């Protein structure tokens, strides 16, 4: 579904952000993109969506990402931004949900049906006519995911989906991700979330692929994770005791 072939990118020539990165995501697979801050996770997402130019080749469902194909690519890839406030700009949740489908040619009736279905799927129909600025952080995140699902994308990219959420809302997001049938690529350093949702993991470090493999294997490898400024997921490391030295 997604192929990233020898991709390099730099904001400033002397400081490369990504160097010869190659990976692929199969259709229906859920892949975690992990790495410390500044590893290049968000940059990868932006490159896949054609928001940043790069050296190398990116293919989405067999189509190369370039200016002429962006419309087609973005119809297939939904992107949930790290900050829901940056994603939602219409006055109400429902109008925000209609925005994408209508831009891609759906009639208003079709768009409304899709939006209703997405709200139903996520169990947030109560938010339908709420004003965006009056939503809590957790509600905003769920609404942001709903706006993407309403577009009926084939794959969903998520950038730090659990950032700034309380445990209850984080759990809600995890359940939502697990319930989504689309191909998913999730960038996060919440390794517990990655362990619960992803079958495969790609570890980025310094703009390069440091490791790739089954989520259970990579996320249990304390030495590997610590070498790249990460830690074992809390559920594997055990919760630290306040009395421990």
């Amino acid at each position, binding site marked *: 579904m997604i192929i990233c072939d020898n991709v390099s990118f730099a904001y400033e020539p002397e400081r490369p952000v990504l160097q010869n990165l190659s990976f692929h995501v199969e259709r229906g697979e859920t892949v975690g993109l992990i790495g410390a801050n500044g590893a290049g996770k968000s940059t990868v997402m*932006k490159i896949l*969506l054609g*928001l940043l130019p790069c050296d190398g080749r990116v293919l989405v469902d067999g189509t190369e990402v370039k200016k002429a194909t962006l*419309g087609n690519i*973005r*119809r297939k*890839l*939904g*992107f949930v*931004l790290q*900050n829901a*406030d*940056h*994603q*939602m*700009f*219409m*006055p*109400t949740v429902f*109008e925000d949900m*209609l*925005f*994408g489908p*209508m*831009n*891609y040619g759906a009639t*208003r009736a079709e768009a409304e049906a899709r939006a209703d279905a997405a709200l139903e799927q996520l169990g947030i129909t109560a938010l339908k006519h709420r*004003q965006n*600025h*009056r939503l809590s952080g957790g509600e905003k995140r769920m609404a942001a995911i709903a*706006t993407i699902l309403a*577009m009926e994308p084939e794959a969903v990219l998520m950038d730090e989906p659990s950032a700034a959420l309380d445990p209850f809302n984080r759990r809600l997001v995890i359940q939502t991700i697990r319930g989504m049938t689309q191909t998913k690529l999730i960038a996060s350093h919440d390794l517990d979330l990655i362990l619960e949702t992803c079958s495969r993991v790609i570890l980025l470090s310094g703009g390069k692929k440091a490791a790739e493999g089954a989520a259970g294997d990579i996320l249990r490898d304390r030495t590997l994770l610590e070498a790249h400024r990460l830690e074992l997921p809390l559920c594997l490391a055990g919760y630290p005791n306040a009395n421990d030295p």
Partner: protein
Amino acid sequence: MNRAEQALRELHEMDVLAAGSSPVHALCPAAKFFTTVLYIVLVVSFGKYDLAGLVPMALFPVLLFQCSGIPMGTCFHKLRFMLPLVLTVGLFNPFFDRAPYLMLGGLTVSGGVVSMVTLLLKGTLCLTASFLLMATTRIDALCAALRKLHVPGRFLTLLLLTYRYVGVLTEEAAVMSDAYALRAPGQRGVHHRAWGPFLGQLLLRSMDRAEELYAAMRLRGYHSHFHYALAAPCTVRDAAYLIVCAAAFLLLRFVPVSELLGGLLVR
């Protein structure tokens, strides 16, 4: 709550007011738009000494306040920064135009005073009518109506995005203002030495935010064309509203209603 945050709340309040469900809210945006434009044009066209003729025009906003359920206090609270400007425009009239214009209970009132009050009333009525249009019509519904009237799409997109961008800018200003205040105890507002960096940072941050928003829009298929909210089609009721209002405005403008009523009372 800092000032920027308060401004942001007020901005959002306009969206909440516009989402109301009164009979005025239910009217077709195009009908409301034309009624408001006609009202403003006619109010502005009154002569500078025609205070008596202008006063009955206040009936329109008063009736709209009643029918829409929007509190009059909210309007004047939101216009509190504009109304003093209106006042200052006519402030010097009494100094330049001292010729006696009328006698009021033995008191001579100069033409300057009458023209100042007329100007003040004109400004207040125009601002109130504009406020009522915005408070009873959602911005995207208004844009949809204007689009139907063949107003250029680019202009409407600009209008809509400006409206949204003001919110983004204010939100960033609110966050920065809080961050500043927390590290500048005892200061009222931002010190003038910090104005430059503060404004520069505000611009950069809001540009970043706007770019991210724009990217989110592009990723959802935006190509410089908005699918506006469904503009309710104009019905007989909307046409009747427009015709009745227009007839009433023209009557009040060209028939000296106040004089006729005054004449009846005096007789």
